């Protein structure tokens, strides 16, 4: 599971940065931990809100990097994706493992959940086997206390021989001590192996380690390398080779080590499998022992409350209706809340446009330039901002709250059976949730899925979930054609309900296509599946609001500049350059019109969808612009005007329905496509991701259009 605040902080679209030390004195510190332990809170608390995403050399991943200072010394914190084990099972875990083992960090902070120490100790112990330069941060001490758990951090520290800091990062408690301990790294003392395996296995390790001694392992502990040599963990080796500069398994020492280990194992009447089992079991045993000694319980069952809540949330009869209700509630609040700020923003933005254009004209700029700059580029950007920002600024915090509460994994838990039937992974439900916000984020989120086949399924179908960028178009059309345009509280509730229905169509398409792909292009059976259901946790509402509104604003603004501005330029040129008698835009509409009519649209709508590739948000404005034959986007205007423009251009209920459906089922936006290309490393699958939803959309719209014309709607 990777739904940490970071990966769904929706700022995961990487920009190709590397961990750059602005100050050469800075020490790089990796921040590791299981998912959902408040790692990102620690990160944000330490670095302020100045988080930016970045890569580290070698692999395109997003490790957030931030800087903090303590007593004049700088630390560069790298927020590594959450993982349960260094034996990576998913792409995301691989990223984490590679950074912890080979990233060259000068220290590692392992953040643990104080309410669930035993589980967290596994990663901690594995990390300690790789490096002794570790500070443990036992987070959520306040939660633990509430649950009647007492964590003896001093005992842990003595047992492990490293600093252990109790913290409640949400309240900023313990973080100063954490920094002080980081400052003192690396700590002195002869390292005692954190885990003692069974005697026979220890002997094996010693024998292998002995053979590896002549090699330079660049600081990696021989014991750890010896264990991995016998481990048979394939995905580790490319990274290991990159780090060491040679392939250990092919080196003479490596071969000798493996042979010696094998011989030792067999001499003791064991098999290689027994040894591998012991490597896993030793960790679990030690974790259990540590937790048993360090955690005291002074109240009854600390999990009783969670189980009670689960009885409802994952209840047989309540679970699904509750899910739909929650979704509808989120949509409704978004629709209702976004209305007014949207109007205000657009007024402000268009006022600036007028003033700016006037100012430029006065300074003697050529008229075409002013037109292009203000009515082309600026207006498109303004549209995107005013239409997108308010719904996103409401939708995201609400969603983040649900996420922080621990609700989303339950959705996956409830729905997994259905995904299993399509030979897909239940965690796809999580990536679909992310897709609701932004498909590109959803595609990146697919890294949490272990099996490459299932991950690809999730990536290819993510676009069937309508992202925030498509909500405004869909909602406007729903309001105009299916609710009579009246803006009453009841009608907004109804449009939220219709949006949920539409979403279910998208989910249906996801299942259908996943199933089809599993039977054809991506043949395979469902692979193993483990999903943690974390404890429910009261989110810090204020913090979530500030963070996600801030995140969203930056995201929308960034996107408006990078995607909408060029689109606006192109649009303006197309609308103002002539082919014979008509503009390029009108000409294109004419060419596409016959094809578009077949699927219930018209040329203008299809052109708008094509021009909307950089940003889905501008589809409706482009349609209106073409209809009003203006050389620029129209201002967002009242519902009656909108309705009049559309109906005058031949829109019927069928047209509206087809447009809505096509909006749900068509190609992904440019950002998503680029992300898919990056994530799959394959042009072929990127093309597939473009074609699959488009074909489904054409098919569905064709059928709807035929039925509509028969019914005479």
């Amino acid at each position, binding site marked *: 599971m990777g739904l940490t605040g970071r990966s769904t902080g929706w700022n995961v679209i990487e920009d190709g940065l590397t961990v750059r030390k602005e100050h050469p004195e800075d020490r790089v510190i990796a921040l590791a931990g299981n998912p959902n332990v408040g790692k990102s809170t620690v990160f944000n608390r330490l670095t302020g809100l100045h988080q930016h995403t970045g890569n580290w050399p070698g692999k395109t991943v997003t490790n957030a990097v931030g800087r903090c200072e303590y007593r004049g010394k700088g630390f560069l914190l790298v927020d590594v994706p959450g993982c349960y084990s260094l034996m990576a099972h998913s792409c995301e875990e691989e990223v984490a493992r590679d950074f912890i083992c080979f990233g060259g960090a000068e220290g590692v902070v392992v953040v643990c959940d104080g309410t669930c120490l035993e589980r967290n100790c596994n990663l901690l112990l594995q990390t300690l086997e790789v490096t002794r330069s570790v500070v443990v941060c036992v987070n959520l001490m306040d939660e633990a206390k509430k649950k009647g758990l007492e964590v003896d951090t001093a005992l842990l520290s003595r047992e492990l021989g490293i600093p252990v800091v109790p913290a409640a990062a949400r309240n900023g408690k313990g973080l100063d001590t954490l920094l002080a301990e980081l400052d003192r790294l690396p700590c002195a003392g002869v390292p005692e192996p954190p885990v003692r395996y069974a005697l026979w296995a220890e002997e094996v390790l010693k024998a292998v380690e002995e053979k590896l001694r002549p090699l330079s392992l660049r600081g990696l502990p021989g014991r750890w390398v010896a264990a991995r040599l016998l481990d048979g963990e394939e995905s580790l080796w490319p990274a290991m080779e990159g780090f060491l500069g040679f392939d250990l398994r092919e080196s003479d020492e490596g071969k000798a080590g493996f042979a010696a280990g094998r011989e030792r194992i067999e001499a003791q009447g064991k098999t290689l499998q027994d040894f591998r089992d012991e490597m896993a079991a030793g960790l679990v045993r030690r974790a259990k022992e540590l937790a048993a000694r360090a955690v005291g319980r002074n109240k009854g069952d600390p999990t009783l409350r969670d189980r009670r809540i689960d009885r409802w949330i994952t209840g047989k009869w309540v679970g699904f209706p509750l899910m739909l209700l929650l979704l509808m509630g989120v949509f409704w609040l978004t629709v209702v809340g976004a209305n007014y700020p949207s109007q205000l923003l657009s007024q402000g933005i268009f006022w600036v446009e007028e003033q700016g254009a006037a100012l430029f004209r006065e300074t003697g700029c050529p008229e075409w330039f002013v037109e292009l700059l203000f009515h082309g580029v600026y207006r498109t950007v303004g549209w995107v901002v005013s239409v997108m920002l308010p719904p996103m600024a409401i939708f995201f915090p609400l969603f983040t709250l649900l996420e922080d509460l621990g609700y989303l994994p339950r959705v996956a838990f409830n729905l997994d*059976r259905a995904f299993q039937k399509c030979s897909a992974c239940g965690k796809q439900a999580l990536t679909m949730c992310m897709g609701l916000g932004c498909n590109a984020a959803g595609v990146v989120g697919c890294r949490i899925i272990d099996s490459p086949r299932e991950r690809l399924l999730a990536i290819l179908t993510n676009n069937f979930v309508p992202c925030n960028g498509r909500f405004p178009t869909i909602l406007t059309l729903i309001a105009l054609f299916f609710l009579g345009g009246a803006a009453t509280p009841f009608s907004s509730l109804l449009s939220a309900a219709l949006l949920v229905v539409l979403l279910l169509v998208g989910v249906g398409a996801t299942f259908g296509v996943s199933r089809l792909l599993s039977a054809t292009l991506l043949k395979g059976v469902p692979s193993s599946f483990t999903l943690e259901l974390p404890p429910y946790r009261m989110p810090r509402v204020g913090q979530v609001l500030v963070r996600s509104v801030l995140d969203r604003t930056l995201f929308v603004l960034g996107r408006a500049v990078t995607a909408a501005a060029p689109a606006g330029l192109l649009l303006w040129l197309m609308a103002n350059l002539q082919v014979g008698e008509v503009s390029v835009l009108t000409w294109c509409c004419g060419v596409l019109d016959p094809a578009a009519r077949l699927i219930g649209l018209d040329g203008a709508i299809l052109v708008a969808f094509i021009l909307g590739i950089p940003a889905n948000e501008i589809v409706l404005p482009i349609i209106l612009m073409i209809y009003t034959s203006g050389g620029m986007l129209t201002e967002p205007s009242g519902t009656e005007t909108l309705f009049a423009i559309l109906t005058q251009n031949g829109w019927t209920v069928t047209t509206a329905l087809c447009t809505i459906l096509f909006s749900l089922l068509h190609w992904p936006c440019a950002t998503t496509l680029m992300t898919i290309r990056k994530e799959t490393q394959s042009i072929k699958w990127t093309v597939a991701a473009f074609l699959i939803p488009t074909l489904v959309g054409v098919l569905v719209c064709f059928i709807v259009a035929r039925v509509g014309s028969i019914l005479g709607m």
Partner: protein
Amino acid sequence: MEAERCLSQLGEGQSGIVDRISAEGRIRRRLQDIGLIEGAEVVCVRVSPLGDPVAYAICGAVIALRREDARQVTLRREAGKTQGGRAAEGGRPWA
């Protein structure tokens, strides 16, 4: 001889002790990583509304597994205690 009991046969509220894992390769290590090693206690805490997957309390965390995977975890023969919301002696307090 009594048939082997596996994890997937546990009903809500029932517990068992892991005997061995029959899965191989990565799944095996995955199951071990979440704490399913020989002698570990497991409690079945919640069956999902569609019957699959099932959530188990393992090592102080709640982890959902599909029946397909849970079938590959064999439990010790001795019958697990059926618990009415109480913790097993010395075990983790899940119910």
